[in-house]
């Protein structure tokens, strides 16, 4: 579904990603872990098409299409969803209104009729139950005055509504207490299917107790330096990142 080949990206001339290779197939969950500043969030942002990052080399094929050639909105319409680490506030625009605009633009791109108010509302009801979100929250201004947990839950709700093919969760666990973490993870798990894939970007193993990955990759200095199964995450939890840093740094200096 997703094939990243030798991806290099920089911000304001400073290289952050330095040759990422990753294959993600439908039905899989991949976890991207790594110390702070290793490029995890950059990878998520580059895939979503954030303007500040310049891709200097490499290619990304998503369902047969050159992802990097597409505008951010077209990537979303093709089925790429990014759950933001810091969801953005939009005053005066309710989540409901925001999502209706988004969903109908996505549908238009896919050649589908826009959903009328009745159908849209019944879809909302169905998805609300899935991620245990309160209707009151959805009629408030998007993310404005939301608690950390509410913001993240709202991200997952949007994901449920837009039914993406590839979901990228950027540090979705940060700032969540254990109950919120459980609710958010449950939502993600319920949305998984054989046709979709998930990339979970996280610093801590904790989230992976709830969203169990098929593969774990360790990102360091802009490259994937180690890949394994969920046992790798447990090992990292126990030993920290230093042993990997040492391993990489000693070979790099040769």
């Amino acid at each position: 579904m997703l094939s990243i080949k030798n991806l290099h990206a920089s911000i304001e001339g400073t290289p952050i990603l330095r040759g990422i290779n990753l294959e993600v197939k439908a039905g899989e969950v991949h976890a991207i872990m790594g110390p702070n500043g290793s490029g995890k969030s950059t990878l998520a942002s580059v895939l979503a098409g954030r303007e500040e990052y310049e891709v200097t080399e490499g290619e990304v094929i998503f369902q047969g299409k050159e992802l990097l050639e597409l505008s951010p909105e077209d990537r979303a319409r093709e089925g790429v969803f990014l759950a933001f680490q810091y969801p953005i506030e939009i005053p005066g625009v309710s989540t409901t209104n925001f999502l209706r605009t988004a969903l109908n633009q996505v549908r238009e791109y896919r050649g589908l009729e826009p959903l009328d108010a009745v159908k849209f509302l019944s879809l909302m009801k169905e998805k609300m139950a899935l991620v245990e979100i309160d209707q009151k929250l959805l009629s408030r201004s998007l993310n404005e005055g939301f608690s950390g947990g509410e913001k993240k839950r709202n991200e997952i709700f949007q994901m449920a509504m837009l039914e993406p093919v590839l979901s990228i969760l950027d540090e979705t666990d940060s700032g969540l207490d254990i109950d919120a973490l459980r609710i958010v993870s449950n939502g993600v798990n319920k949305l998984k299917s054989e046709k979709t894939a998930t990339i979970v970007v996280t610093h801590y193993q904790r989230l992976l107790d709830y969203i169990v990955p098929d593969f774990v990759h360790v990102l360091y200095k802009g490259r994937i330096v180690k890949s394994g199964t969920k046992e790798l995450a447990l090992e990292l939890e126990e030993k920290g990142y230093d042993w990997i840093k040492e391993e990489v740094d000693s070979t790099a200096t040769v």
Partner: protein
Amino acid sequence: MSKDNQILEDLNSKEYEHGWSVNFETDEAPLGLNEDIIRWISTKKEEPLWLLEWRLKAFKTWQAMKEPEWANVHYAKMDLQALRYYSAPKQSKKPKNINEVDPELIAIYERLGISLNEQKRLQGIAIDVVLDSVSVATTFKETLGMLGIIFCSFSEAVKEHPELIQKYLGSVVPMTDNYYAALNAAVFSDGSFCYIPKGVRCPMELSTYFRINAANTGQFERTLIVADDSSYVSYLEGCTAPQRDENQLHAAVVEIYAGAHAEVKYSTVQNWFPGDKDGKGGIFNFVTKRGICAGDHSKISWTQVETGSAVTWKYPSCILKGDYSIGEFYSVAVTNNYQQADTGTKMIHIGKNTKSRIVSKGISAGKSQNSYRGQVQVMKRAHNARNFSQCDSLLMGDQCGAHTFPYIDIANPSAKVEHEATTSKIGEDQIFYCNQRGIATEDAVALIVNGYAKEVLNQLPMEFAVEAQKLLALTLEGSVG
């Protein structure tokens, strides 16, 4: 930032939708302004002597006045002698009702999306249309007449209801009030008049639609709304003009009188031609609007969505004379390219327990300058006066300006006055967030701006709100990356 600039450049391709004009035979005054022209207008309109004298007195006062320069707007002054002060479409005889109006005129308004045919009109809006200097049609007159409501052109009101005009004309905005108001008093040609009798709740929205068609012509209309005790009316005003290279002057006066327990809601969606991308042409919109809450427990509410005009100078105000009276001002002012707006309100608290509320949302893009200027004045005997003001500014790009000039003048220590102000920029973060959910940039800007202006747009009647939302999006099309 580079993308910002690029998109701002793209804006150049955007055109003003109502920029066309139509050629038809007109009845025009000679160019220039002097006593003879004023007599000419007055004779043309078959006015009574008292009105001619009123005009001439205003003209005398005006001659001694200077064009105000305190506003935060800069423009080359107009040569007022090069303007024409009267232009009217030639009609063989005065139409008695809408069926007798020249089909060519009806076609103009159809093209603007305004149907004068009562059967085709949306239920619930009566409309008076003013083309250049004269009112060409008023709809639903009979229906309103059954309730005793008078809604007609100003000229007609002078003839049919002289006692009302004589009583209220200039009672809220005196002819000597300011430079443009005095000019208007001297040369005004037409406008709308509306009277709601005691205890009547007007069952439909009343509306005036202004259009400047002729070149080198100033439009000077007067609107007078009188809401007698315990009555209610909601009034809408819309306007457009053709795209021309030279500046055109629009200097209107609106007066509102509200008796005890009466309520008047006045909404404007202003879409005059704003000039081209280089700041050439466009309307100078120098308007005086004021309402008086004369009776106890009366209420006047101004809502304006200002998207057009090259230069706007406009301060819809409320004189809160009656005890417990309420004044409100809700405004969204958008400027783009080289537009300049200096707009706001005055709330003058005279009566006891009077309340006012000001919500102003400025949006600046391109190289435009957008100023809020507001005054809250609490007089000595206005015990327990309350005011809440909120002035927000939204900036798009890095070449525009937003300014706030609040004046607060309190002479009674029991007053409670609150002022809040914010300035923000449409963030690339916000746009990216929308993009990531599949929303195109243009639509994202529209969504964000409409969210920002929501508090004001909510005050507009339904159909107007939809139009205003579209207009906001159109005005700002392509102004952010």
